[in-house]
């Protein structure tokens, strides 16, 4: 009997996909959501909008990103859908400091893991202690996000660089600190994990008991974190956050935000991976997602970090921009 190969229907693209893209140096992973509203296709990568074209079983996506220097560029992904898998090639477009060679990409349907299999536990399940050094893997660094009107209004008012917290030695807070490329150390003590970040010398306490913030505790850039183990995955939820910007792009994190981090460790205990999800309906229509990976590095150490904002203020003064900066004070935090 002849084998019948069914060609994909356009509507087969709808749904949630896990995209994997192979740069010549690394693999990037992200959540791609494809929807059809009336006759229009909409798509979102890691919570942010992307351009999409679909014709029969062919697909093309244009996704913005940025490199570490902050230069913005696009990745164009072209491919086709067969046997419930999308495969194709991608290439970088635009000017970026970090050049990527064209490479393959693919997408498979998101598998929803059954978390109920693993009963949540406050007991330490995996050894995360030690110093961790960031790799270049995983994160698409999706640039634009799907903002609410309030989120857009805020972003319109934001002045890059001048309103950025870290240039004046103010804490960048969460979630940005988790995604930065500097090493951090995890300590474990009874009913508590302590994260020591090299960048800005910041400390996070993650309570693995029923600890709650006192009624007098103020919001902060680090917020108040509780952690729970789901099998070998550490799930941290952080509330009581002070307003900050999500990244230097300037999108807002409100005081109502909840940040969820899911940490998992490789079987050999040497690679740590985090999925970081921002739930902030005040500013985002879809939850922004970031990813980060580290490797255990016992040969390094956490360096001290002191900060002097003179390199920010003095040039601003010399350029005659100080009054502008002062006038914008109510817009900064």
């Amino acid at each position, binding site marked *: 009997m002849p084998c019948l190969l069914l060609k994909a229907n356009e509507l087969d693209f709808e749904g949630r996909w896990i995209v994997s893209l192979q740069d010549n140096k690394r693999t990037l992973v992200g959540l791609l959501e494809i929807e059809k509203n009336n006759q229009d296709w909409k798509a979102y990568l890691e919570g942010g909008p992307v351009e999409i074209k679909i014709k029969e079983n062919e697909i093309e996506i244009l996704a913005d990103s940025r490199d570490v*220097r902050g230069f913005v560029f696009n990745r164009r992904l072209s491919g086709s859908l067969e046997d419930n898998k999308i495969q194709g090639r991608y290439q970088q477009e635009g000017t970026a400091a970090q050049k990527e060679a064209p490479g393959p990409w693919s997408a498979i349907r998101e598998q929803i893991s059954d978390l109920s299999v693993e009963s949540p536990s406050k007991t330490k399940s995996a050894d995360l202690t030690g110093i961790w050094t960031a790799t270049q893997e995983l994160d698409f660094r999706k640039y634009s996000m799907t903002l609410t009107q309030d989120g857009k209004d805020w972003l319109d008012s934001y002045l890059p660089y001048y309103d950025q917290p870290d240039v004046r030695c103010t804490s960048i807070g969460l979630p940005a600190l988790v995604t930065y490329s500097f090493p951090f150390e995890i300590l474990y003590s009874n009913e508590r994990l302590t994260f020591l970040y090299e960048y800005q010398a910041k400390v996070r306490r993650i309570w693995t008991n029923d600890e709650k913030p006192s009624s007098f505790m103020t919001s902060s850039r680090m917020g108040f974190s509780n952690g729970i183990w789901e099998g070998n995955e550490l799930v941290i939820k952080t509330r009581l956050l002070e307003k900050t910007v999500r990244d230097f792009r300037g999108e807002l994190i409100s005081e109502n935000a909840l940040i969820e981090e899911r940490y998992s460790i490789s079987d050999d205990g040497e690679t740590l991976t985090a999925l970081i999800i921002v739930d902030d309906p005040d500013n985002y229509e879809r939850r922004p997602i970031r990813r980060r990976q580290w490797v255990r590095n016992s040969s*390094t150490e956490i360096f001290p970090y002191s900060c002097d904002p003179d390199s920010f203020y003095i040039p601003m003064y010399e350029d005659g921009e100080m009054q502008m900066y002062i006038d914008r004070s109510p817009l900064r935090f």
Partner: protein
Amino acid sequence: MFVVGYLFSGVTHSHHSFTSEFTAEKIIKLNGNVKQVWFRNPHVRYLLTVGTSEDKSETWDLRGSPVVWLARKGWTKDIISMGDNIIVEGYPGHNGRKMLSIIRVTLSDGTVLIDRAPE
């Protein structure tokens, strides 16, 4: 001590946004004498005196990575001092501003320092 010219693009980095300050469209190379050193977080800064063809000089504002990143690679406070002659390559400031996001520095003894952090 002159502005040497344009190179090919390449290389990466810095920890916070210089998008509004620098352009990725080109890389330039400067040869000059170090006028001032700021080896501090959140990022190091050098002022560089560069000669121009009219027998005059101009001052360039060079910006680098945080101290913690550079120091880990051996780029310490004393490796570049006031008065040193250096060649530096990097991304220039927007709209002709005499600023440079450092990619690479060549010291007078030929030592090359790379300001390149991982993603």
